[in-house]
């Protein structure tokens, strides 16, 4: 679920376990380490395969989960419905990016006048981060259409988008907020001292820097969103997961799940790799520029402004 909503400061903490030290480190100069890596990988996989294939339930498992003809029959069907998830993801993503930013900006409005605004935005974020996604989807996706208020759409796709947007904008606003807070206050002071209004300072100086910094963690959230699109099958949207269940029920066989899993892997793994690559690149850049900057950047960090 969206519990992997990553805050900026968590990013580094999340990283180390992700890096696969064994094979990675093996890609040093020369062919010898490469050979060792290939051999040890082959051995590990051979042992695992032997354990699985020799398990007592293996023949029945093969029957229920690894049925070739059923797999090839199911794959185009589920892949076709996966387009619904993609559409859902794309529409929701745009709305989430906008709503998340609005929430983050509302929460960072200063002064006592804006206290109610901050309070409401905070309540919103807390609420949707606290509730399990499935619950929100059931309550809103079934509840509101059941009210049959005039003019409120009944379309399941519409409610699926609404629900995903509500849940994820809460997480994404936190990512944005971490980004906004990571921009040093002296930047805002410099903007204000030039006569820019508070809003102009935010718009032209703080947000551009903040957004740039949070792109990798945002992508991380969107990997979660991509997977969570299957949750809306609960409110009747026939998407990839619902379609899988339909095929599975028709054939009395679990192989369709394998097909669906494959579809997700093909889409999600490249995105995860891309995110990791971005994070690494950003980290490298930070190290590089941190090394070349003079003492001035140190005093920039030390200076505190209101």
């Amino acid at each position, binding site marked *: 679920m969206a519990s992997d909503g990553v805050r900026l400061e968590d990013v580094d903490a999340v990283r180390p376990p992700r890096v696969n030290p064994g094979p990675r480190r093996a890609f040093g100069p020369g062919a010898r380490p490469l050979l060792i890596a290939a051999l040890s990988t082959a051995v590990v996989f051979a042992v695992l395969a032997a354990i699985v294939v020799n398990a007592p339930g293996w023949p029945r498992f093969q029957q229920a989960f690894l049925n070739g003809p059923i797999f090839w029959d199911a794959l185009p069907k589920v892949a076709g419905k996966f387009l619904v998830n993609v559409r859902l993801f794309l529409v929701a993503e745009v709305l989430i990016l906008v709503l998340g930013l609005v929430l983050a900006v509302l929460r960072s409005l200063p002064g006592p006048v804006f206290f109610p605004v901050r309070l409401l935005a905070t309540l919103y974020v807390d609420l949707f981060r606290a509730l399990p996604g499935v619950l929100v989807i059931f309550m809103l996706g079934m509840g509101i259409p059941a009210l049959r208020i005039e003019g409120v759409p009944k379309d399941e796709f519409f409610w699926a988008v609404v629900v995903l947007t509500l849940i994820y904008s809460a997480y994404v606003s936190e990512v944005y907020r971490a980004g906004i807070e990571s921009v040093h206050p002296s930047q805002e002071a410099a903007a204000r001292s*030039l006569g820019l209004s508070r809003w102009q300072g935010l718009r032209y100086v703080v947000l551009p820097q903040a957004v740039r910094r949070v792109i990798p963690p945002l992508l991380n959230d969107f990997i979660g969103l991509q997977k969570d699109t299957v949750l809306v099958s609960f409110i009747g949207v026939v998407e990839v997961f619902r379609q899988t269940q339909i095929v599975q029920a028709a054939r009395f066989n679990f192989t369709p799940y394998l097909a669906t899993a494959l579809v997700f892997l093909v889409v999600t793994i490249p995105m995860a790799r891309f995110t990791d690559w971005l994070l690494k690149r950003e980290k490298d850049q930070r190290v590089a520029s941190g090394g070349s900057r003079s003492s001035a950047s140190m*005093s920039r960090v030390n200076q505190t402004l209101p």
Partner: protein
Amino acid sequence: MSGAVSGAVTSAVTSAPALSIEGIWKSFGQLDVLRGIDLEVAPHEVIALIGASGSGKSTLLRCINLIEPIDAGRILIAGDEITAQGVNVDRIRRRVGIVFQSFNLFPHMRVIDNITLAPRKVLGRSAAEAEAAAMTLLERFGLAEKAREYPDRLSGGQQQRVAIVRALAMEPDLLLLDEVTSALDPELVAEVLNVIRELAAGGMTMLIATHEMGFARDIASRVCFLDSGRILEQGSPRQIFAEPREARTRQFLNRIIEAGRL
């Protein structure tokens, strides 16, 4: 240049001091940082603010720019009270430029965009107009070829000169400089000081907080010695540095001389 000229015109017409500070007080919690500062600055004057660390130099400059609200007193710029209720602070800040010790350039913008942002968004200049004015300033300070660079590709001295140009691009009536050379490596200090010298020669009204006593002596028309939030003594550079009246001023200057900075 244009900044200095427009400053001169405004103040000549109103014939009021460029800046008047009347009894301002400022405290952070229990700590009284400014305790009744009075100061009048005529057009084209260059005031050096000297004093020990923590004496309130930065706070005074930040109050004049309204970055810090004051607790009591009045500040007038060319006769207009800027600390009155309901004054649009953004309007004031256009007339008062401030440059910080740590440059505070916007790292995501090229040099030229750093400089033109406020003229475009605040003064409503067109991009072409703002860029032309910015290029004139950059050329004047030997930075023209850096216009398309990002700040982190510049040396500290160049960054600080860009920060000064950025403030000048708003054509302020008054320029506040807060220890603009303190974060620089020694060999980069001169290029920044030369810029300030040129501004002074061009008639820019300035308040300069500095630890560079030699520079203060050369450039200032008046030196103010701040001590625990008060202007304890002020006078011509010659008077302050050669024959300070107050014991504390002498003490301060002796420490500076011992440290080899005068």
